[in-house]
């Protein structure tokens, strides 16, 4: 990168933008101009420490010194304090990489995020970018699949199905046309790791998809991004243009015999399209209605052709697996949960952000050591892990290890790694009602337990809240029907937050009834 003067980083990640990063960047440029200071402002990704955003970094001889959270009004003071030379200021954070929150992490997938300019291919290449694809080009398709299989990588979207097995099935399927589809419909509340990859390191996703294409013999790929992520769509489209122009995409990639054409498609605000078969329907231009399985998408997927459909983080984990080898990757983690999981601390949390760790840390470590407890300073009462379909966990389960099997053993699920924290002001009967309400709004409508059950669920919870406590058994019965009778996870898992609220926080159902009766 050609730079003049001192390099100042101001993130372009959309959370930073939502907190005023563009205004801060403009103020820094204006102030530097006023003072005749020569600087280059680089718009990097976010480090994922969102309580510090906008986090401004200055490159010094000692390393990158951080200041945050910076508001436009702070900028003149920062110049007065000599921040361009790493000067002291009340917002000074020292060397960014030494901040414990970051230092304690094991960033494999997020190794570059926040460090590089997301849209600079040069920067990507300078930070181990495309090393995975270069190695993959020296291997046979079967060898690439084997590497992913051996890494132990499981689907990071939530279902945790082994990625290598999906790929192997598609590799073995006979068809003139195969597809790679990236599920970037990150609809779970409390999750933003997909968004960060797309906005803050888009080439990594493109590289992962290109490797997937080589591995299974696909020539065309789609990234289905939710419409709520406009910044991700812009970043991906720009990165795809660059990758095409530099022959990392398109015909005969890097002079090989492989070709891969990649396109971004925008969703339209339907949560259910995060379910893989609904997503495929949507890509085909139809309503996002869930398909019955079998046939598996790996056999009959997009437009009826064999299709690899993987979550953003799954695909983004592939470049490092190929670059460093399966053995390196599976050295992280525990049991059958190998590698790292980028977890997202959200909701009522003091230090919210992105924490990538090997599987095996406890929920308590995440909530307290990283998260610092609630933002409100009140005790944590409930935590929802795994999105709107994940159960609410009470304090007694906080020592559960973040591992697919350990979570399943306590009736939980890791899902996409979102951790949403609630303090003691939460009304769990309301949260249970919301789970049903959300399902009613977002159900695709194909199967009755989900479509009708969710509406009945809201009504029954309202009755319970109105004092008809005997209706609780009806609610449990309804949940049972939804769990066992629904076609996909939407209907069969909506009862998890409801039942967990009933089981772990029964007093909220009785008390709301008592309040009404009083």
């Amino acid at each position, binding site marked *: 990168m050609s730079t003049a003067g001192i390099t100042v980083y101001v993130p372009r990640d959309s*959370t930073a933008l*939502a907190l005023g990063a563009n205004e801060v960047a403009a103020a820094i440029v204006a102030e530097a101009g006023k003072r005749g200071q020569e600087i280059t402002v680089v718009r990097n990704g976010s480090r994922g420490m*969102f309580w510090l955003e906008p986090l401004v970094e200055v490159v010094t001889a000692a390393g990158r010194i951080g200041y945050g959270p910076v508001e436009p009004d702070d900028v003149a003071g920062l110049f007065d304090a000599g921040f361009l030379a790493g000067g002291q200021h009340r917002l000074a954070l020292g060397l960014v990489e030494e901040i414990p929150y970051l230092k304690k992490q094991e960033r494999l997938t997020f190794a570059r995020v926040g460090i590089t300019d997301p849209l600079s291919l040069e920067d990507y290449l300078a930070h181990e970018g495309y090393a995975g694809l270069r190695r993959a080009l020296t291997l046979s398709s079967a060898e690439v699949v084997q590497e992913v299989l051996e890494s132990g990588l499981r689907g990071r979207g939530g279902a945790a199905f082994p990625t290598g097995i999906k790929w192997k099935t598609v590799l073995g399927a006979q068809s003139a046309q195969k597809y790679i589809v990236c599920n970037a419909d990150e609809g779970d509340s409390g999750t933003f790791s997909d*968004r960060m990859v797309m906005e803050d390191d888009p080439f990594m996703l493109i590289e992962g998809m290109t490797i997937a294409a080589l591995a299974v013999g696909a020539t065309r790929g789609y990234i289905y991004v939710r419409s709520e992520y406009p910044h991700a769509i812009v970043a991906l489209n720009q990165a795809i243009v660059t990758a095409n122009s530099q022959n990392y995409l398109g015909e005969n990639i890097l002079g090989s015999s492989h070709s891969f054409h990649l396109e971004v498609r*925008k969703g339209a*605000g339907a949560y259910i399209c995060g379910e893989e078969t609904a997503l495929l329907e949507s890509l085909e231009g139809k309503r996002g209605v869930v398909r019955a399985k079998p046939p598996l998408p790996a056999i009959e997927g997009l437009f009826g052709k064999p299709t690899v459909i993987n979550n953003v983080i799954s695909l983004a984990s592939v470049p490092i697996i190929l670059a460093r080898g399966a053995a390196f990757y599976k050295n992280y983690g525990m049991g059958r949960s190998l590698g790292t999981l980028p977890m997202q601390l*959200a*909701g009522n949390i003091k230090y919210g952000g992105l924490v990538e760790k090997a599987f095996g840390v406890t929920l308590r470590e995440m909530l307290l050591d990283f998260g610092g407890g609630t933002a409100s300073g009140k005790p944590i009462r409930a935590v929802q892990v795994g999105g709107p379909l994940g159960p609410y966990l009470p304090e007694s389960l906080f020592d559960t290890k973040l591992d697919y099997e350990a979570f399943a053993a306590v009736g939980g699920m890791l899902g996409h790694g979102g951790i949403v*924290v609630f303090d003691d002001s939460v009304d769990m009967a309301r949260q249970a009602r919301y789970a049903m309400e959300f399902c009613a709004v977002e159900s695709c409508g194909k199967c009755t337990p989900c479509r009708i059950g969710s509406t009945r669920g809201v009504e029954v919870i309202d009755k319970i809240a109105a004092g008809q406590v005997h209706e609780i058994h009806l609610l449990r019965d309804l949940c049972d029907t939804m769990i066992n009778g629904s076609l996909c996870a939407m209907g069969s898992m909506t009862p998890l937050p409801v039942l967990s609220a009933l089981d772990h926080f029964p007093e909220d159902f009785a008390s709301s009834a008592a309040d009404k009766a009083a």
Partner: protein
Amino acid sequence: MQSSQVSQVSQVVPSDPSVDLDQVKSIIQEYQAMPGAMLPVLHAIQDALGYVPASVVPLIADQLNLSRAEVHGVISFYHHFRQQPAGSHIVQLCRAEACQAVGAEALATHAKAALGCDFHGTSSDGQFTLEPVYCLGQCACGPNMQIDDDLYARVSNDKFNKLVRAKRGAQ
């Protein structure tokens, strides 16, 4: 036959005589060769017109070789597509769990009172349409909202008022 159908349907949308069907036709033609062109077509129409009027349904059906029911089914399935024009600005408030944990419900109550409309409604001056959204992906810094294309994090009632006032002033 096809063209008479189009004009008939157009006539039953009196609230919107300004729909330029030729413009819509050229949008459809731009995208129709894409595999699975429906969503890209609908996005492009909504980007151009602000909504997807009922009068364009027969056109899309004709060009994509689908039934009008299929096209209507897709439009009505997705929350993003609106079938009526919106106010000058669209205010999206996140209602999902992470924002709930930091007061999204109270903010929603405030927003409804401040704008004088419910979710999916438009303020009486036609300035703001209020929409719920289920996650904007800024979950460590809620409550979140978006006005048109701009995202805002940690939105308090005061911040909401200021932002809305600024949009009004910018008119």
